[in-house]
């Protein structure tokens, strides 16, 4: 067994090796990105609000905006991003092997994914929880009435595990129909193969828009898990980890300080020292990240602050109309909180 496995280990890891080695040697993901002239960003294969190409082929979404933010900070150009759509099953391997620089694909932050997969989560850009969607005509008001149901799910997700836990602890029977691709799972639910579809609540609202008759489906009130969704990077490049993390924090800080895409140029003249530091008028906080001192100005100028990105993609300004809830700033009742720039 061991020797057979070793032989195949060699064959299977060839791709892993070459790219992994190059990323390892310099430990400078940023240098490589500058050399390539574009950021390579792993995104969802198509989830409204988080990562979805529009009718012109431009990627949009909350996760996509983070990638655009990083590109703005590095190149002062939000379009210098190469998007690689990934299924839930392939996403971590793509990041581990160095195929992508950052994984912004509504991935749940868990202990084992950091301890065993060699990844690091930079933060949480969306606090979520898992829910169920059912047809209204089934007349179900609670997930506790799902005993005996068939449930469509995307495989290789925490969703699959939470669902098993949920039905096991409630002593209910169910049938899990797992698909590798999110679109196949949604299609199977829509055609009646399953009684319910389960994923993170935000994803349920996003997927509902893709159904033939969105109005015939409702999301059940139960949230059965904690799903802190956020972007992840490989371990071993602390500078790059910091750059991605502070891109996310810069957007939150900008919202907190009232700096928006529209007023960022005026804000350069603001007397507030916190705004001055954020926008690079005072001090040089970009240097340690390998960036210019106006890095955060560039992010806000091109992409906007966190609140703007939220509203545009998943909030009131989008077809999803999701309330801020937990994702509001700490100062307005939510739990989005960023350490200060200083």
């Amino acid at each position, binding site marked *: 067994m061991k020797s057979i496995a070793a032989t195949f280990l060699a064959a299977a890891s060839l791709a892993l090796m070459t790219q*992994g*080695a190059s990323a390892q040697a310099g430990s400078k993901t940023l240098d490589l990105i500058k050399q390539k002239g574009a950021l390579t960003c792993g995104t969802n294969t198509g989830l409204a609000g988080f990562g979805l190409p529009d009718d012109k082929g431009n990627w949009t979404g909350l996760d996509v905006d983070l990638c655009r933010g990083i590109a703005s900070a590095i190149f002062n150009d939000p379009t210098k991003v190469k998007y690689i759509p990934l299924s839930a099953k392939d996403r971590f391997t793509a990041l581990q092997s160095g195929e992508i620089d950052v994984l912004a694909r509504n991935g749940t932050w868990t202990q084992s994914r950091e301890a*065993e997969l060699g990844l690091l989560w930079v933060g949480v850009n969306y606090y979520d929880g898992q829910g169920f969607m059912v047809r209204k005509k089934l007349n179900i008001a609670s997930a506790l009435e*799902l005993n005996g149901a068939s449930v469509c799910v995307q495989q290789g997700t925490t969703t699959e595990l939470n669902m098993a836990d949920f039905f096991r602890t409630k002593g209910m029977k169910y049938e899990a129909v797992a698909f590798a*691709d999110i679109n196949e799972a949604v299609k199977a639910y829509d055609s009646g*193969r399953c009684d319910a579809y389960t994923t993170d609540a935000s994803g349920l609202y996003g997927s509902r828009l893709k159904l033939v008759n969105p109005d015939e489906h409702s999301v059940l009130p139960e949230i059965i898990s904690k799903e802190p969704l956020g972007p992840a990077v490989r371990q071993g490049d602390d500078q790059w980890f910091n750059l991605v993390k502070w891109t996310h924090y810069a957007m939150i800080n900008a919202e907190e300080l009232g700096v928006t895409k529209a007023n960022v140029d005026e804000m350069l003249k603001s007397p507030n020292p916190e705004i001055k530091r954020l926008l690079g008028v005072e001090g040089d906080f970009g240097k340690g990240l390998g960036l210019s001192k106006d890095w955060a100005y560039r992010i806000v100028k091109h992409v906007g602050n966190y609140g703007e990105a939220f509203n545009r993609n998943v909030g009131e300004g989008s077809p999803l109309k999701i309330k801020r809830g937990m994702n509001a700033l700490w100062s307005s009742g939510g739990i989005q909180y960023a350490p200060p720039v200083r």
Partner: protein
Amino acid sequence: MSLDVARERPSTSLFYNPRLRGFLWQAILILIVGFLSYEAIVNAATNMRARGIPTDFSFWDRVASFDINQTLITYSATSTYGRAFMVGLLNTLLVAAIGVFLATFLGFFIGIARLSKNFVVSKLASIYVEVMRNTPLLLQLLFIYNAVLKPLPNPRDSISFGAGIYFNNRGLVVPDPQFAPGSGFILIAAALGIAASFAFKLYAKRRQFESGEILPIARVSAALILMPPILAYLLAGQPISFDTPVLRGFNFVGGMRVLPEFVALVVGLSVYTAAFIAEIVRAGILSVSHGQTEAAQSLGLSRTHTLKLVVVPQALRVILPPLTNQFLALTKNSSLAVFIGYPDLVQVFAGTVLNQTGAAVQVIAITMAVYLVISLITAMIMNVYNRRMALVER
């Protein structure tokens, strides 16, 4: 100048010895390949360790904590990843076995139909072959799954075939046989019946060889195989009962359920592979020269006997080797299950298990080894059969 000198001289130098040179080149090639493989393994292992990615097989005994909707052996979310692997493997083998059987049957039928003198039959068979083998298999699978099976009614409006058999978009629900004590006798009776039919076949062969008299093998065998289990069933007091499915809540409770994903995969694979097998069968039959048929008929053999005793045995020699390839292809193609949500080895093990454990290299290596072993075993069985059928050359 020196080149000219070298060409004129007889090659006595050891350096120009063609055998030695050939050996040298091969040794260099082996060294390069060996070095590259070694580098690949060491590099991958180092990189994986540096990133904290597991490099061992310790995940095998950990609790899987996810569910699978078709399990041939007992499995629950509290079973281990190793158990999940077995579930996936058995599901793959099930699809492959049934697929190979159906594809062969359908392939022979269509292959013969293509040679039919009836214009309509042969044209229909040609159209089938051309359409099936010239469109991608994945497309056919998605078509069968999405366009044929999913528009079926939901469980509440199931199509009923009577006798507790229902068909809906959750699959085919049939009564589940329950074996009470005494069922063992039926199995024993069936085994005895099959043994008896083989013995009769041997006897009939020898009888024909000695006297030329042909015994009705098919009819007698059928009686020998069917009668004993039926008698045993009645004598043992009808020990088999059926658990009939009942609609309760969302779905049918009780009974046995054949998943639509399974049906789509088996039908898709067999229908696709049958097109290739049909061509192999046609080629095999055409390879037997017409003189053989004429000779058999001039000896007074009937059409059936000509086909059975003269044409098919010779055609099989041509058919078997490429047929093995088709069986292997079908088995490997069954991994397309992942696109329609059937829990085969790739979907369960190289999909969910890989993703939950992060042991990508190990999982893919095991999966590849499994397909290799399945293919080698299939090829071995077919080779043994082929050797028995091959022309004995003297």
